C-alpha cells in the first residue's frame, strides 16, 4: 500500500515536471491548445465530482459559461483584476448552481439528465435574449486581458499557460481532497444506494446539492480562465455540442477514479488535434468512439489500469482501484 502511494506521488511529480517544460518545446499554437486542455481538465474533473453522486448533468458547460460571463462582466464594467474576478466568478456560479439545483433535485437518473439540459438551455437563451449586459447572440468582445503583473505579461501564451497550470493544480488538489474525504465517500454512497445512505443519516438532498454547488464553483473558475484567454465569448461556445465533448472525455477516460476524466481529456485532445484535417468527419468519428466505449469499455480507459497493475503482480493496488463505483454504465446509458 505504501509502495503504491510512493509510486503515485512520483508519477504526479513527474507529470507536473513534464507539464512545466512542455510549453518550451512546442510552437505557440500548441501552448494555446495546452491552456485549453488545462481548462478542460478542471471542467471534466469537477463534472465527475457531481457524477460521483449518480447525478449526470447536461448543464456543466453552461455553468462554465456563466463563470465566463460573470468574470468578463466584472472585468469589463467594474475594471476589477482577474485575480478578483476569477474567484468571484466561481462564487457567482455557486449561486447560479444553488438556484437551479432545487428543481433538479426533484428528479433522479435520466430525469435529472434531461431536466438539467432544459435548465441549461434556459440560461443560454437568456444570454442570447438580453443584449444588455450579455451582448446577445454575438456575445461579449474586448474582455480585458489579465494584463501585466510585475515583470510578467500574461498576454503572452507561456505566462498565461503557467498561471493556468498553477490554478489547475490548486483546483485539482482541492477536488482530490474532497473526493478522498468523508464527504466524497458520502457522495459515492448516494450513488451506491441512496435509500441506505439516507437511512444511516446522510441527508441525500443536501449532499447532492453540495456536490452540484462545488462542481459549479470549479466550472466557474474554468469559465473565467477561458473568457480572459479568448478575449471574446458568445453563447455558441457553450452550446450542447461542447457538452457532448465533455461527456465523451469523461466516458472515454472513465468516471470511477479521479484520474479517469484527466486521461479522457488528454487522449481526446490528442485525437482532436490529429483529426483536424478531417474536420467535417469529426462528429461522426467522435460518435463512434463514444458508442464504442459505452459498449466495449464502459469503465473507460482507466479500467485498463488495474489490468496493467495486475500484470505486474500488484493485486492490492488493483483492488483499491476497483473499489470506486463506476458511474458511466449505469446512469448515462
Amino acid at each position, binding site marked *: 500500500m505504501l509502495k503504491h502511494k510512493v509510486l503515485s506521488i512520483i508519477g504526479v511529480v513527474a507529470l507536473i515536471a513534464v507539464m512545466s517544460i512542455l510549453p518550451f518545446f512546442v510552437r505557440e499554437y500548441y501552448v494555446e491548445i495546452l491552456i485549453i486542455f488545462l481548462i478542460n481538465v478542471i471542467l471534466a474533473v469537477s463534472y465527475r465530482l457531481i457524477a460521483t453522486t449518480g447525478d449526470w448533468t447536461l448543464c456543466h458547460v453552461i455553468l462554465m459559461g456563466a463563470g465566463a460571463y460573470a468574470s468578463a462582466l466584472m472585468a469589463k464594467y467594474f475594471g476589477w483584476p482577474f485575480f478578483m474576478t476569477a474567484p468571484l466568478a466561481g462564487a457567482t456560479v455557486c449561486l447560479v448552481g444553488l438556484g437551479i439545483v432545487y428543481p433538479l433535485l426533484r428528479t433522479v437518473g435520466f430525469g435529472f439528465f434531461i431536466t438539467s439540459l432544459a435548465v441549461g438551455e434556459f440560461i443560454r437563451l437568456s444570454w442570447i435574449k438580453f443584449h444588455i449586459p450579455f451582448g446577445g447572440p454575438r456575445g461579449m468582445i474586448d474582455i480585458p486581458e489579465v494584463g501585466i503583473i510585475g515583470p510578467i505579461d500574461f498576454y503572452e501564451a507561456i505566462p498565461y499557460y503557467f498561471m493556468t497550470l498553477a490554478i489547475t493544480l490548486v483546483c485539482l488538489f482541492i477536488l482530490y481532497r474532497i473526493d478522498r474525504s468523508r464527504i466524497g465517500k458520502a457522495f459515492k454512497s448516494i450513488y451506491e444506494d441512496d435509500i441506505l445512505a439516507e437511512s444511516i*443519516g446522510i441527508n441525500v438532498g443536501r449532499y447532492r446539492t453540495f456536490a452540484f454547488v462545488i462542481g459549479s464553483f470549479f466550472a466557474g473558475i474554468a469559465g473565467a480562465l477561458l473568457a480572459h484567454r479568448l478575449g471574446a465569448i458568445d453563447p455558441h461556445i457553450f452550446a450542447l455540442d461542447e457538452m457532448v465533448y465533455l461527456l465523451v472525455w469523461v466516458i472515454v477516460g472513465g468516471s470511477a477514479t479521479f484520474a479517469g476524466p484527466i486521461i479522457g481529456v488528454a487522449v481526446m485532445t490528442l485525437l482532436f488535434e490529429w483529426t483536424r484535417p478531417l474536420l467535417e468527419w469529426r462528429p461522426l468519428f467522435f460518435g463512434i468512439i463514444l458508442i464504442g466505449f459505452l459498449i466495449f469499455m464502459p469503465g473507460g480507459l482507466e479500467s485498463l489500469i488495474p489490468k496493467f497493475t495486475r500484470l505486474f503482480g500488484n493485486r492490492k493496488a488493483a483492488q483499491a482501484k476497483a473499489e470506486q463505483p463506476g458511474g458511466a454504465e449505469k446512469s448515462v446509458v
Partner: protein
Amino acid sequence: MAMFEVRSLCKNFGGLAAISQLNLEVDEGEIRGVIGPNGAGKTTLFNVICGVYKPTKGKIAYQGKEISGLKSSQIAERGVVRTFQRTALFHHFTVLDNVLVARHLQARGGFFRTIFGTNRRIDIEQEKKALEIIDFMGLSDLKDELADNLPHGHQRALGIAVALASEPKLLMLDEPVTGMDPTETQHMTGLIKKIRDERAMTILLVEHDMKVVMGICDKISVLNFGKKLAEGLPKQILENPDVIEAYLGGEDVVALLG
C-alpha cells in the same frame, strides 16, 4: 411513558390498506418481535417509521417527540435506524468503508478541516470505532474485502454493522437471519441479544424464523393484513388460537419449533 409509540397508524397504497389502525408501544431496552405472514405489512411499518413513506394517518413518537414527516436522515439523527429485508449495502465499497461512511453522523467537522485533513484525530477515532463494530459483528478478517464479494451470511452481518455504526438507540432489524444456515442463525441470534445487552439498544425485530423470535423477544406483536392480531409474551403468542389460525394456517406451533 414508552420510549417508542405508534398511534392509530394507517398506510394505504391506492386501495390497499397495508397498515390500518396500528398501535404499538415499545419500552426502552426491550427486544420486540414483529411477526406476521407474508404481506402482513411488517416491512411497510419499518418504511413508515423511518420516513421512507409518509403515513396516511396516525402518529409516530420517539422519546415523546413526533417523528412522522421527518426525512430518514433526520430520523436516523435522532437515533432510529433500520436494516433492510433486501441485502442493502454499498456494494462497491470495502467492508471498512461501508462502516466508515455510516459513522457520518458522528464524524462531523467543518468542511475545510474535513477536506484538508486537519481532522486527522477525528479520522483515526472514527476508524477505530468502525473497526470495533466490524470486530463485534465478526468481520475483522474481511475488512478490506469488497462488500459485493462477501458470502451472503457476512453481507447480512455487514448490513447490521452499517446500521450499528450510525449509533442508533432504536434499531429495527428486518429479517436479519434470512438465508442463513442454522449455525449462522444461532450466531446471529446471540449477536442481536448482545447488541441489546452490551450496546444498550432497543430492538424491533421482524423475523419469520420462529425459533429466533421466541428465543430472544421479550414481547411479540403479531400483524395480519396490516392490523394487530395479538400481542404478548412469546408463550402467550404461541398459545393464542387466532395466531395459530392466521399465521400458521392452524399447524401446531410447538411442533413447528421442534
